[in-house]
């Protein structure tokens, strides 16, 4: 089941939530809508589900215009951020709900409903919980029941609104891998909303970055991460060092240093620009290996698990430079606070004229 979102616009009093969004989602795809809170991503999801109406534009589900269908007839599975399990129904009744409310003519028999519910609960590894009430389950368990409930009616499309945001870090990680596996098994076209770039990168086939009601970029996680289309995307997808500098003769001048850009810079006229580089793309060594290496002093060291975060001070740079190196490199080099090192900046991405972040 493919989804074709055409030019969706939504205004709320005082601001525009969605400014003409168009997006195609292919059958069986798992797409992440990624953006800061308030960017309009949840509104878009709710419009697809029929829980909100668009001011303009249309939603086509598999060649059928469903823009004005009531939510009840959209046959879209929706998983709410806070699960929205029916608190007075037990797990079995929750999952069976969508089947029990079918018109008598198309409603499966009691036995079939039971089989289907048990099958789904098996899929989400919650068979043991059929008699429990939502209040007796943990957050992660509730989320899985909510997923089973949404899948019970064979939705053409599965929509998940910040599915992991209410869970604690460890459960979140577990559930996200599990959801990826589940999707590989059942292949239902899915869109999920998140503000967590790691989640989007790990889970999605395709990422759609949204900001202020507009799509900034879309593509595979690899594309979006490695080739951010603009400064916003660069900033939003992970930590980044930003240097303000001048561009001349295909090179970037920052604080008196010449830095090579990742891509060829066109034009010879001098421009102001911003150079972006991720902390883990910066090299650190004890000895100078090329003329472009800059000297720096380690001001702070942070243990971040497998990676080590360094804060470096270098002449000509206003702000400290953030660097991440593998733990092994760190211990091999025997780095300590106050040590002098050399910094290699050779993969900067440059954006000119656009100061918007």
């Amino acid at each position: 089941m493919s989804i074709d979102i055409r030019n969706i616009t939504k205004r709320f009093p005082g601001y525009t939530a969605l400014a003409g969004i168009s997006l195609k989602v292919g059958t069986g795809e798992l797409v992440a809508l990624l953006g800061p809170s308030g960017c309009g991503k949840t509104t878009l999801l709710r419009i697809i589900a029929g829980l909100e109406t668009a001011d303009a534009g249309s939603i086509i589900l598999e060649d059928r215009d469903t823009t004005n269908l009531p939510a009840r007839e959209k046959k879209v599975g929706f998983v709410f951020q806070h699960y929205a399990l029916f608190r007075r129904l037990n797990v079995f009744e929750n999952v069976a709900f969508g089947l029990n409310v079918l018109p008598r003519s198309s409603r499966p028999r009691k036995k079939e409903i039971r089989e289907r519910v048990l099958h789904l609960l098996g899929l989400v590894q919650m068979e043991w919980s059929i008699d429990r009430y939502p209040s007796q389950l943990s957050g992660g368990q509730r989320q899985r029941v909510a997923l089973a409930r949404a899948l019970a009616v064979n939705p053409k499309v599965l929509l998940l609104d910040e599915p992991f945001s209410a869970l604690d870090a460890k459960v979140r990680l577990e559930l996200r891998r599990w959801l990826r596996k589940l999707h590989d098994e059942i292949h239902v076209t899915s869109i999920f909303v998140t503000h967590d770039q790691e989640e989007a990168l790990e889970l999605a086939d395709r990422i759609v970055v949204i900001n202020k009601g507009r799509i900034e970029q879309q593509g595979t996680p690899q594309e979006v991460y490695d080739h951010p289309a603009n400064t916003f995307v660069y900033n939003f997808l992970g930590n980044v060092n930003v240097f303000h500098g001048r561009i001349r003769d295909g090179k970037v001048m920052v604080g008196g240093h010449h830095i090579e850009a990742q891509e060829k810079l066109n034009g010879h006229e001098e421009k102001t620009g911003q150079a972006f580089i991720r902390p883990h793309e910066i090299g650190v060594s004890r000895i100078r290996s090329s003329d472009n290496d800059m000297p720096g002093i380690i001001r702070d060291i942070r243990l971040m698990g497998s990676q080590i975060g360094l804060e470096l001070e270098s002449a000509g740079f206003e702000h400290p430079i953030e660097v991440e190196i593998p733990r092994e490199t760190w211990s091999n080099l025997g780095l300590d606070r106050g040590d002098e090192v050399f910094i290699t900046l050779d993969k900067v991405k440059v954006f000119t004229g656009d100061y918007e972040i």
Partner: protein
Amino acid sequence: MPPFSTNRKHILPGFGLSMGYTVFYLSAIVIVPLATIVIGTFRMDPQAFIGTVTAPRVLASCRLSLTTALLAALCDSVFGFLAAWTLVRYRFPGRKILDALVDIPFALPTAVAGICFATLYSPVGWIGQLLAAKGIQLINTPTGIVIALIFIGFPFVVRTLQPVLSELEPEIEESARSLGATRWQTFRRVLFPHLFPSLLTGATLSFARGIGEYGSVIFIAGNLPYKTEIAPLMIMSKLDQFDYDGASAVAFMLLIASFTMLLMLNAVQRWQEKASH
């Protein structure tokens, strides 16, 4: 655009039905009947209206209703504050029962409360005979009315104060104490100002209720014209004489008094909310 409408499409079902029924039922049971009083009063000859509401007996009854309700609200502020303070801050046997019993004046039919107080304070009643021995009589006096109204109004004060008291952060008190304030200073300068708006709200509710109260008062009041005849009773006796215009004129004045009070209350609460943000 008509009121109660919106240009947004509603997602959940039943808005039209529930809203339509709500507006219809509200109009049929409350709005239209209340409007008859207002319309009726405006159709009255202005002179007759003024004549009615300035008749000495009517004026006396309105004055009595206002003063007794005001006195009762003041007493309720004291007793209600005491009860709320004790029930929230201290632990003692019977506390939960007392807490539940605060609602008795809401739950007990007013007529029952009325005959109880009339009997208790009659010269042969449990309390009345003690007072009679000292030459005091409360029945058939404005003081008797105040006693009945204290009973009716005190839950308003307790129930508005309780939540504020229990949400009071101990840090407020502790920091005041650590700055060298005595207990009394802490209470007077820190706690009381914090609780005052709720106290005022509760007292106003109790006052508004007291003005219109009928059942619990008439038995103990004795209903002597000019002395212990309350305004609602005035309406009653005008109705008994089929003086519908007179009754609605007095009712109109009483309604104005109650609504003014509640509007003022609203304004005070809004002001308070603004100040606390």
